[in-house]
């Protein structure tokens, strides 16, 4: 059990080590079933699924042209369904069960299809079945984040194959390393809710696939503006609310740790949004809605790895950092490097995940109102661990993504014809039109 809930236990031990009076929430024994914790994690599960369906789908769908709107929704939907089945079959067990001799790198097959996970098996204070389901929603949203890299031009089959392979080759092993008791967990890496596991992996792979699939026709000069900024805002709002489940649920219980995670998440989102707004206001004379909510997502993603370790001050600092750095990176990637990571997955999610992962080292220190590092660990040591974790994760994501795309291309082309691209994927890939008003 120790390994399966590394995230939670680590948090508990860190907190317990640093704060002399354990909080009410943490005082309760962690090996007994708790109805309150179970209620909260089931709620958080619903919130995180809601982030993908329809949250992320609308956020991305509003950013593309109307003729590719439905195809983006389809991407999110099919990724949700396919990864769910794969997660049940082999994903969860490889990520969260004991891998025996190779456990440093990957789990085993014991819990394939949840065999052997009875109704009375607990993970901490909640049924393992609930932990399984909560984790499934993370396995759904992570490959769905990459949808923002390749819209308006990818083949449906290519996208589907890439996502399934990516789950198995990138998401599952990295999850095992960090949350499943693998080598990075052993090194004491801090990644509360997925700065590396979710955002860096997705962001890096987004960059790879954007480069390998190529830019949209007309990029970067003649790309059309988002077809529905209002829809982008609806999606961002759903992501924001859902993120309470994402970060708050990662405490794996209904306790003050979850409460603090929600507070810092919210503060970081608010501050990053305002940061982005101010930059645009100063630079362009007008704050835009799309910019504002992009700041929101940057703030949410930046706090993610740190959300269980920092205090309100940490939330503010991460919000400013996230908003500022991501704003710059969007321009660097799109205009300096001219990479058509169309909806800025790397510049927003990848960079945020990285920023939060690095900065948590310092912001977790009591000086900044954080909960402190694990007993006996110095900031410089922790920094090294965080850095190494990020570097290896990024390297692995690059290598695996390149390999996957090579393999997928042997099976099917990954890019639609020029004609289909011009006409739009809604009609050409799905036979439907987005708006029949």
């Amino acid at each position, binding site marked *: 059990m120790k390994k399966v809930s590394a995230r939670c236990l680590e948090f508990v031990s860190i907190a317990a080590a640093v704060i002399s009076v354990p909080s009410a929430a943490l005082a309760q024994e962690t090996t007994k079933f708790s109805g309150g914790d179970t209620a909260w994690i089931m709620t958080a599960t619903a919130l995180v699924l809601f982030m993908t369906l329809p949250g992320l789908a609308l956020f991305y769908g509003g950013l593309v042209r109307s003729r590719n709107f439905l195809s983006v929704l389809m991407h999110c939907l099919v990724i949700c369904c396919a990864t769910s089945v794969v997660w049940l079959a082999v994903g969860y067990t490889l990520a969260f069960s004991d891998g025996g001799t190779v456990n440093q790198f990957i789990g085993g097959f014991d819990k394939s299809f949840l065999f052997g996970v009875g109704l009375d098996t607990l993970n901490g204070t909640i049924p393992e079945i609930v932990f399984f389901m909560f984790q499934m929603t993370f396995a759904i949203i992570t490959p769905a984040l990459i949808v923002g890299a390749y819209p308006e031009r990818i083949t449906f089959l290519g996208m589907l194959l890439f996502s399934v392979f990516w789950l198995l080759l990138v998401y599952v092993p990295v999850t095992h390393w960090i949350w499943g008791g693998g080598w990075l967990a052993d090194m004491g890496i801090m990644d509360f809710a997925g700065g590396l596991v979710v955002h860096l992996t997705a962001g890096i792979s987004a960059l790879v696939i954007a480069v390998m699939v190529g830019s949209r026709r007309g990029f970067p000069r003649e790309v059309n*503006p988002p077809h529905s900024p209002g829809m982008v805002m609806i999606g961002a709002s759903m992501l924001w609310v859902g993120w309470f489940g994402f970060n708050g649920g990662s405490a794996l219980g209904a306790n003050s740790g979850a409460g603090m995670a929600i507070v810092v998440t919210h503060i970081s989102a608010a501050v990053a949004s305002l940061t982005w707004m101010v*930059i645009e206001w100063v630079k362009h004379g007008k704050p*835009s809605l*799309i*910019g504002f909510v992009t700041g929101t997502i940057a703030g949410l993603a930046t706090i993610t790895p740190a959300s269980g370790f920092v205090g309100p001050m940490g939330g503010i600092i991460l919000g400013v950092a996230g908003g500022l750095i991501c*704003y710059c990176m*969007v*321009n660097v990637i*799109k205009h300096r490097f001219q990479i058509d990571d169309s909806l*800025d997955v790397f510049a927003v999610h990848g960079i945020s995940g990285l920023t939060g992962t690095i900065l948590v080292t310092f912001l977790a220190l009591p000086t900044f109102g954080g909960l402190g590092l694990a007993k006996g660990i110095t900031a410089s040591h922790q920094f090294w661990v965080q850095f190494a974790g990020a570097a290896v994760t990024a390297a692995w994501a690059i290598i695996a993504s390149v390999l996957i795309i090579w393999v997928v291309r042997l099976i099917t082309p990954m890019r639609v014809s020029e004609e289909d691209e011009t006409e739009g994927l809604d009609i050409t890939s799905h036979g439907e039109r987005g708006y029949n008003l």
Partner: protein
Amino acid sequence: MKLIMAVIKPSKLDDVRSSLSPLGVTGMTVSEVKGFGRQGGHTEIYRGAEYAINFVPKIKIEVAVADDVAENVVLAIQESANTGKIGDGKIFVFDISEAIRIRTGETDTDAL
């Protein structure tokens, strides 16, 4: 009969409409169009990048009138749609060779 087609600023539609009533114009057909011209669009910013939007939303009005009122209608439109700023639009006049009211089958100026 003449068909007067005017491309105007959307905010001027109501003014134009009221300016035509006194002239006995009882009907018109209006559509939303995009105009390209000297006015030259504007810039929209998405995530720090500026996109040039070349077109400007305009309203196209089509009014069929008898020959004798055509000149007055053109003048009325020109005055009421005028803001003096670039992008005010154009008026074009065409000859109609035949007009029919569907409901009654009336033709020519009776049809208007």
